[in-house]
């Protein structure tokens, strides 16, 4: 792998930061230069959030702009559509099928688009989707959505499974290792 740009998007509070931290660690362990750009502060309160993970021989900018991401990992369907312009035309969307209504939709001032992931696929973009929440619950915790999505990503990118599991073990709290490993497997074997 020469260089890779990964966009991780979701709703504030969904655990996107852990996913980006893990991706960063996995690429470092593979001997690459890495930059990860995170979002802290206001948008963490239920807003649309984005984290950038960039790896390569030498990475200068910590951000990814439109048309630059190889992969988008999305924790929520609408966010996949919102951030789609950041994806390369031959990029891959790995998306949770979960739908979380934003406040304008809750208030009836806007509509949540129907079949939003199909709309992305119709644009000729490869979409890999999964009900990550159900899989996470199956693994033992609703909070493991991020690790399920990481499992799917690892398979899509052909990352070494052992390296990924090592990174998870080294990063998540001790008592959640078993659940998270299970979550990774469920995503990986999807």
């Amino acid at each position, binding site marked *: 792998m020469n260089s890779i740009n990964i966009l991780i998007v979701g709703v504030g509070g969904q655990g996107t930061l852990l996913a980006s931290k893990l991706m960063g660690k996995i690429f470092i362990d593979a001997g690459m230069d890495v*930059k990860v750009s995170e979002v802290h*502060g*206001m948008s963490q309160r239920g807003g649309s959030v984005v984290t950038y993970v960039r790896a390569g021989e030498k990475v200068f*900018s910590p951000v990814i702009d*439109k048309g630059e991401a190889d992969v988008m990992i999305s924790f929520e369907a609408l966010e996949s559509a919102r951030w789609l312009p950041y994806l390369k035309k031959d990029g891959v969307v790995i998306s949770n099928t979960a739908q979380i209504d934003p*406040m304008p939709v809750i208030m009836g001032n*806007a*509509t949540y688009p129907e079949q*939003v992931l199909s709309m992305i696929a119709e*644009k000729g973009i490869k979409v890999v989707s999964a009900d990550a929440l159900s899989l996470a619950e199956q693994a033992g915790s609703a909070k493991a959505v991020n690790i399920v999505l990481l499992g799917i990503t690892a398979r899509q990118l052909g990352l070494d499974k052992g390296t990924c599991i090592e990174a998870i073990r080294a990063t998540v709290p001790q008592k959640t290792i078993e659940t998270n490993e299970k979550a990774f497997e469920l995503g990986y074997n999807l």
Partner: protein
Amino acid sequence: MEKKLLLGNEAVARGLYEAGVRVVSSYPGTPSTEITESVTKYDEIYSEWAPNEKVAFEVAIGASFGGARSFCAMKHVGLNVAADPLYTASYIGVNGGMVCAVADDPGMHSSQNEQDSRRHAIAAKVPMLEPSDSQDALDFTKAAYDLSERFDTPVLLRLSTRISHSRSLVTLSERNNVELKKYERNVMKNVMMPAMARKAHAKVEERNEALTLWADTEAFELGINREEIFSDEIGVIAAGSTYAYAREALGEKASYLKLGIVNPLPKKAIIDFAKKVKTLYVIEELDDVIETHCIKLGVKVIGREIFSPLGEYNQSIIAKAILGFEKECVSVDCDIPARPPVLCPGCPHRGLYYALKDMNLYVSGDIGCYTLGAQAPLSMMDTCVCMGASVSALHGYNTARGSEAAKKSIAVIGDSTFMHSGITGLIDIVYNKGISTVIVLDNSITGMTGHQNNPLNGKTIKGDPTTAVDLEALARAIGINRIVVVDPFDIKATKSAVAEELLAEEPSLVISRRPCALLKNVKHEPSLVVDSDKCVGCKMCLKVGCPAISQKKQENGRTKAFIDPNQCLGCGVCVETCRLDAIKKA
């Protein structure tokens, strides 16, 4: 040597450790907060949260007087609060080295303005360093202490959101255990009265000249400033994150003058660099500080004419402006609803706002999570300026409009913000015979910046127990006679208490007290459910603006309220809204 993937903020903290810093005092503020949080991991460094940035800066100066290497961190607007000590500390200089990190927020990810803190460095005549990644953040932090002690000046370290909150690889070193310097009384140096300050000002001007020379010479030897020559066509002068964007966008199609010291700026180095390229660009977010400097030097540059003073840059903006190309991208053919940040499920602020929503009040707002209540559907804010302004601006509003207005107006301010600078406004109200009603939203934590302890919650930065400020006793001591404590989840009691205080002919303090729902020790009720036999889909429950409640189409085609069990914390505020009792415990 060990290499680690560190946030820019963590790298600054590591730099403080390696530089032998002993004392750190800060007030939280995005994007600067994690510096001081990371410092707590180093037992060799004393760290604390101060009530505000001015206090933090003064603690750091005091520690410097005492001979220690010291530090404070704040966000850009925090430096406005600390500007008073900064400008005179510049005249006094230091004993132990002193550095103040200031984190700007271009693009305003989490701020109320987009000011450029380089202006403070220029006005206070102190050196300012600006890193462009985590390794720079560590190295420049250490270099800043040498600069501080050698040139007898506090040093500003300028960060921005993309530097503070980006992770990149950093090489770690051991701590340099710098000895505590000897303290000697020196009135001419350390007491600023007119006679001393006149002499000090002359020294500051000389120092600025010496630092300019340093920026032209030693800064290059140390790698703080750097020339990278690849092309004689395009030249770029940049600092901080814009250097990273430019380097990414233009690669080896351009030559670079990367500036690590952004005040004072080098002179000769810029003139020399300009001679090496045909077209010279200055790329800087926010204000045109470097460009103006170049114009003054008589160096022809392209800057503001193609780069905006608004928001953040990135590699595409630079590629488009200089090389004229854009990357292709795809988008879906439908409107995508916005997803603004909202108050969390179970947030106590929601209860307070909902209780007061129909009272048609003028709400003087402040800075914190509760600012999110300004948006629909709660729509509970008329103004928001800066930390602490809710209280004093309410007094101004009521003074302008008279006592009838005072009976229809409130200030809302969080516990940490009240300690920061709300208390002075309340003293103003009492002292000047105002009758305003001020509500402190006491959720036992500094919330928006990610849960920092503060003087009202009885815990130090490390979570150790300490004396908590008694808010009621404090209010009594400044002369408030009417103090009421309410539970914001008790909607009826909250509403009637505030209504009563609004009618009083003297100032009142209402304390809306319930801890933040995200605190680990807060126990939650089981999530609530909607009885779809009772729900008629009237949407009244949506008025609380809770992200856990939405409308869902049923199998029979009718739309009814739905509570997401993964989000609901059972706070019960929505129960109050339902006249059919359709919302209940599972």
